[in-house]
C-alpha cells in the first residue's frame, strides 16, 4: 500500500487526511503556513448554527496528531510533480523555520522575550506579534517559527550590523528552555513517492483595493469581512470587542457590502457563495456583542441556498432586526468623524440615497489559490478545472490528482468537507491499488 499527498491543510485538507489515515493509508499533509487550520481557523463563528469555529475545528486538528501515519509538512510548498497515478514523484521545499521542531514544545517563552514587534497576519494586521511567533494559540503543530525578514539576528538593520561586533540579539536562543533555536537552518528538499494527490489549497480574499469606490485602505473604518471576523473573535486583537480603528469607539451603525469583487463583470463573474450567509452571521454577532448597534446589509440577491440558511436569514431579519437593502454602493469618508457615507441606489425605489455609518464591512470575493507547480488545467475564474465531475467526481485533468474545496470553486465549509471525503474515497482506491475503472467522458 502506498501513500497520498494532500496539498493544503485547511478544513478540507484536514478532513481528507483523517479519512485516509483512518484506513491505514500514509498521508503527507503539506501547508505553506506553519500550522494547519486554513481560513476556518480565522473564523469566530460559523453559519447557520453559530458554532464557534475553532471549537469544532480544533478537535479535528488535534486528531491529526493522533495518527502516526499522518506526516505534517508545514511551512512548505510543492516544487515539482512528475510520474503518474499510482506513482507520483513529488519534490517539496521545506522552508526554514529557524527552530528545531523536534525540540520546540510550543511553550511560547521565546515569543514573549523577542524584542521585535510586527503586524500579526493571524489578526489581519490588527494586532502585533513578535519576530519569533506561534501562528495562533491552538496551532497544530504548536511550534515557534522565526520570521526571518523581521528578525534582528537573521536580517540585522545595516547600521546596527556595522556597530555590533558579533551577532545581534539572540534573545530567543538564550531563553529557549529546550535549546531549539537554529539560526543556521537551511531550506530542505523532501522527495516523496505518492500514489495520489489531493489539492486543497483553498482561497484568498480578493484585493479590495481594486475597488477604489469603496475606499478600503484609505478610509480607516472600512474592514474586510475577514478582518471583522478577527475583530469579533474572542481570540482576536481586541478580545472580541468591536471597536473602530479610528477612535477605539464602539460603532453604532455598521453596514455590510455584498458582492465586493464577485458577480461583477469588471472583476470576477462568479458568485463567491459564502458571503451572503457570512454577512448575515456577522450582523447577528455584532448584535450579540453590541445590542444597540444597527446592522444593514447592501446586497444584489441574498443567496440563502444551503441547509438552514433561509431560516437563518429570516432569524436575522425578525429576531435581530438586521436590515437588508438591495443596491450597489459607493463609500465616502467624512473627514471629521471618520464616519462613512454610503451612497447607494435603492433599487426598490430606483432612487439614489445616502446614509451614514460608523463602520463598513466588505464581503470579499474569493480567489482560488490555484497557482501551483502542477500543470493542472484551470476553469473560468482561475479555479482548478474538474475533468468530468459527473462520472469522475473531484478529479482534475491529471489522473490521480483530485481537487477539493474552494480552489475548485467558491463554496462553504460543509461542501468543502464533503468534497474532501469524496477525494479521500477516490484516492484510497488508487493508494490501495484497487480496481478503479476510469469512466469515459460524457460529451
Amino acid at each position, binding site marked *: 500500500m502506498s501513500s497520498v499527498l494532500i496539498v493544503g491543510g485547511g*478544513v478540507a485538507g484536514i*478532513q481528507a487526511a483523517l479519512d485516509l489515515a483512518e*484506513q*491505514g493509508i500514509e498521508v503527507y499533509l503539506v501547508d505553506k503556513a506553519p500550522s494547519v487550520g486554513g481560513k476556518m481557523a480565522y473564523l469566530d463563528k460559523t453559519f*447557520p448554527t453559530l458554532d*464557534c469555529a475553532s*471549537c469544532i475545528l*480544533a*478537535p479535528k486538528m*488535534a*486528531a491529526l*496528531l493522533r495518527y502516526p501515519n499522518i506526516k505534517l509538512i508545514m511551512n512548505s510548498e510543492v516544487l515539482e510533480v512528475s510520474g503518474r497515478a499510482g506513482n507520483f514523484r513529488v519534490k517539496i521545499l521545506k522552508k526554514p523555520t529557524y527552530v528545531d521542531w523536534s525540540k520546540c514544545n*510550543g511553550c*511560547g517563552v521565546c515569543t514573549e522575550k523577542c524584542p521585535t514587534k510586527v503586524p500579526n497576519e493571524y489578526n489581519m494586521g490588527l494586532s502585533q506579534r513578535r519576530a519569533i511567533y506561534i501562528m495562533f*494559540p*491552538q*496551532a*497544530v503543530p*504548536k511550534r515557534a517559527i522565526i520570521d526571518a525578514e523581521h528578525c534582528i539576528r537573521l536580517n540585522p538593520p545595516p547600521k546596527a550590523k556595522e556597530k555590533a561586533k558579533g551577532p545581534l540579539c539572540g534573545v530567543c536562543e538564550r531563553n529557549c528552555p529546550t535549546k531549539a533555536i537554529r539560526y543556521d537552518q537551511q531550506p530542505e528538499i523532501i522527495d516523496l513517492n505518492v500514489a495520489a494527490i489531493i489539492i486543497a489549497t483553498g482561497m484568498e480574499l480578493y484585493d479590495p483595493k481594486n475597488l477604489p469606490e469603496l475606499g478600503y485602505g484609505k478610509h480607516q473604518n472600512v474592514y474586510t469581512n475577514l478582518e471583522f471576523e478577527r475583530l469579533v473573535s*474572542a*481570540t482576536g486583537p481586541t*478580545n472580541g470587542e468591536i471597536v473602530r480603528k479610528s477612535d477605539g469607539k464602539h460603532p453604532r451603525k455598521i453596514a455590510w457590502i455584498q458582492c465586493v469583487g464577485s458577480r461583477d463583470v469588471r472583476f470576477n463573474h*462568479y*458568485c463567491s457563495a459564502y458571503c451572503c450567509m457570512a454577512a448575515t452571521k456577522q450582523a447577528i454577532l455584532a448584535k450579540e456583542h453590541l445590542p444597540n448597534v444597527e446592522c444593514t446589509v447592501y446586497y444584489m440577491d441574498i443567496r*440563502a*441556498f*444551503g*441547509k*438552514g440558511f433561509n*431560516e437563518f436569514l*429570516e432569524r436575522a431579519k425578525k429576531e435581530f432586526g438586521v436590515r437588508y437593502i*438591495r443596491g450597489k454602493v459607493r463609500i465616502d469618508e467624512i473627514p471629521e468623524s471618520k464616519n462613512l457615507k454610503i451612497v447607494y441606489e435603492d433599487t*426598490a425605489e*430606483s432612487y439614489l440615497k445616502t446614509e451614514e455609518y460608523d463602520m463598513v464591512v466588505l464581503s470579499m470575493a474569493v480567489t482560488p489559490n490555484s497557482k501551483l507547480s502542477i500543470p493542472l488545467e484551470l*476553469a*473560468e475564474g482561475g*479555479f482548478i478545472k474538474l475533468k468530468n*465531475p*459527473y*462520472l469522475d*467526481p*473531484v478529479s482534475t485533468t491529471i489522473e490521480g490528482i483530485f481537487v477539493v474545496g474552494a480552489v475548485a470553486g*467558491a*463554496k462553504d465549509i*460543509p461542501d468543502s*468537507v*464533503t*468534497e474532501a*471525503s*469524496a477525494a*479521500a*474515497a*477516490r484516492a*484510497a*482506491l488508487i493508494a*490501495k491499488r*484497487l480496481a*478503479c*475503472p476510469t469512466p469515459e467522458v*460524457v460529451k
Partner: protein
Amino acid sequence: MTEPRIGVYVCHCGFNIAGTVDVKKVAEYAKTLPNVVVARDYVFMCSEPGQDLIKQDIKEHNLNRVVVASCSPSLHEVTFRTAVAEAGLNKYLMEMANIREHCSWVHHDKEKATEKAKEIVRMAVAKARYLDPLEELEVKAEQSALVLGGGVAGLRAALELANYGLQVYLVEKSPTIGGKAALIGYVDPKTKGAEIVSKMFELIKECPRIHIFTNSELIQLSGFAGNYTAKIRVNPRYVTEKCTLCGECEEVCPIEISNEYNFGLNKRKAIFLPFNNAYPPYYAIDHRVCVKCGECEKVCRFGAINLKQEPKIVELKVGALVIATGYDPYRPFKGEYGYGLHESIITLFQLARMLDPESPTKGELIIGGKIPKSIAFIQCVGSRNTTPGAKEYCSRMCCTTAINNAIKIKEKYPDTNVYIIYKDIMTYGSDESLYEEAGKKLVQFVKFEDKIPRVLITPEGLFIEVFEYTIQENIRIPVDAIVLSIGMLPPRDIEELIAVTRVSCGGEGFVREAHLKLAPVEAPTKGIFLAGCITGPKNILESIRMGSAAAAKAMSLLSKGKITIEPMIAQVNEEKCSGCAICVGVCPYSAISIKNVNGDRVAYVEKALCMGCGTCNAACPSGAMQHLGFKDVQLLAQTRAVFGGEVNV
C-alpha cells in the same frame, strides 16, 4: 482500591473561559479538594503543550485520575483520553468538567461564574475518585454495505464501495435504478441527466460486487455498526429476465395511469418500462394498479411474465448503511398559482422532462397543445415561505434549473419570450455564468419580494400579476404557459425510513447529519451514512460527491475488519437483579434479554448492541443495572459534592 491521586487541569480556552471565570482561582481551589495532588491552569489544554502538561504530571506525580476542566466532552474527550493513555493511564480514568458551555459561555458575572466553575470541578473530582479502568471491546466488521436508493448519490456510493472490495447491496424501491437524474433532461447546458445515469449503469454492470435489488425496501435493521442485519422485502416485478423489451404486453394492458417517470406528462400502462435505458432492462408490473387480468401473460411470446410471483424477504449481513433515498418534488396544491386549473400551468420537473429528446414531446416545447410564444417561470414555489403550504427553506437547485431550461428554450425558440419571476436568484458559485448567459439571451427577470405573484386565468388567456420590486409597480404579463419552479420535499416514505433506521430529522423534515458543518455525510448513529438530497436540497453534482464522501466514511469504518466498541455501557449485577425485565422493555436498542443463571432469571446485556444511553440504568428498581461510565456510586458522589456534602459516599 489504591488511594486516588488526582490531577486537575483548568483550561482558559483563550478568553472563552478565562474571560468570565477566574481560572487561577479555580485551579487553586481544586488543590484543596481531597485526593487532588496537582492542579494547574493553561491557556489551551487541548494544544500539544497543554496535553504534555498532563502527561508529565501523570508520570511525575504518579497520578491515577485526571480531571480536565474545559469544554464539552463532545469536543475534546477523545483528545484528553488519548493523552492520558499515552502517559500509560487507562483512558477511562479521565473525567471532564464542562466549565465553558455549562458556565463561562452562559454567564457574565465573573465572581459567580468562578464559584460555579469551582462547583463543577468539585463534582468532577468527586466522581473521578470512583472512576474504574475500562477496556474497549472489539468485534468483527462485515465487509459489506447496504446502499438505500439507486439515484446518482446511491450509485456513486455503491461504485466506490464495490471498487474498494466490499460487497454492496443496492436497494431501490422502484423497478429501475437511476433516480430523478435520469428524468430531468438537461442538468447543464451540455449534459443530459439520462446520459450520466446510463454511463453509471455501464460501470455498475461491470462491478460483480454490486447486487441490485429493485422493487425493494428495507423493512428491518438490527445490529450495530459493523454488524447490521438488514431485512429487505423484494416485491415481485412479475416480469423475468426473459423479457426482450418487445413491448407487446404494454399494448394489451387495459390499465392506464399517469406516468410518474414523465412527471405526469403522459400516461403509462400497469405493465411498463420506466424509461428507455432503465436498468435492469426489463418491463415491470405496477402491483398497485394491476388487476391481474392476464392479458400480458397471454401475449408475451417469451414467457417472461409470471403473475404468481410473491414478495420475498432477503436477510443481509452488512457492516454499514448508506442512506441515499433522495427527495420528492414539492406537490403544489390545486389552485396554488393556478396549478391544476389550467393545462398550460406545469411544473419545472415537467418542463425539464419535456425538453429531453426522449420525452413524450420528443424534446419539443408543447404546453397545452401549442408552442408558447411567451412563457414565465415562477420561482420559490413551495420554498421560502411564499405560499401557506410552502417550506421555509430554499430548495437550492430550482433557480439554476429554471435558468438552464430558460436558456434551452431561448436557444430552440428564440422568438419565445421567457420571464423568470423570482425573489432572489440563487445561482451560487460558478452557476452565476448561467444567470449571465440568460441575461444575454434576453430572458427577462422580474423580481418580487413579500407580495407573491398572482396567476390570472381569464377568457383572454393567462396573466401573471406581480408587484415588480425594482420599479415598485404592479405589472401584468400575458403568457401562454406558466412553469412553477417547485422545490424539494423530504421523500414521502421518510417516516418509514426513520422507523427502520432510527435516523432523526431536523425541523425542515430532512435527515439530520451528525454535524451540519463538519460531518455532513454521517448520521449521528455510527455506521449510518448519508448521501444526496435526503439531508436537504442539493444539485446533481453535489449529490454525486456526497455519494463518494459517504463511501469514504464507510471505508474508514470497515477497513480494519473490526470495530471498537466503547465500554461505557450497561452492566448487570446478577446478584442484585430480580429478573423483572423492566429494562428489557425500556431498552431502545433491543440490547437486553433475560437469561437463566443457575435457575434465576437475570437480565443480560448484549454489549455490542448497547449504546450506553442509560435508560435501563434509570429504570432498574433494584440498582442492579449500572452504567459503567455513570455508576450510582459516581453519580451520588457528584450529587453530594454539589450540595457541599461529604465527598465520601
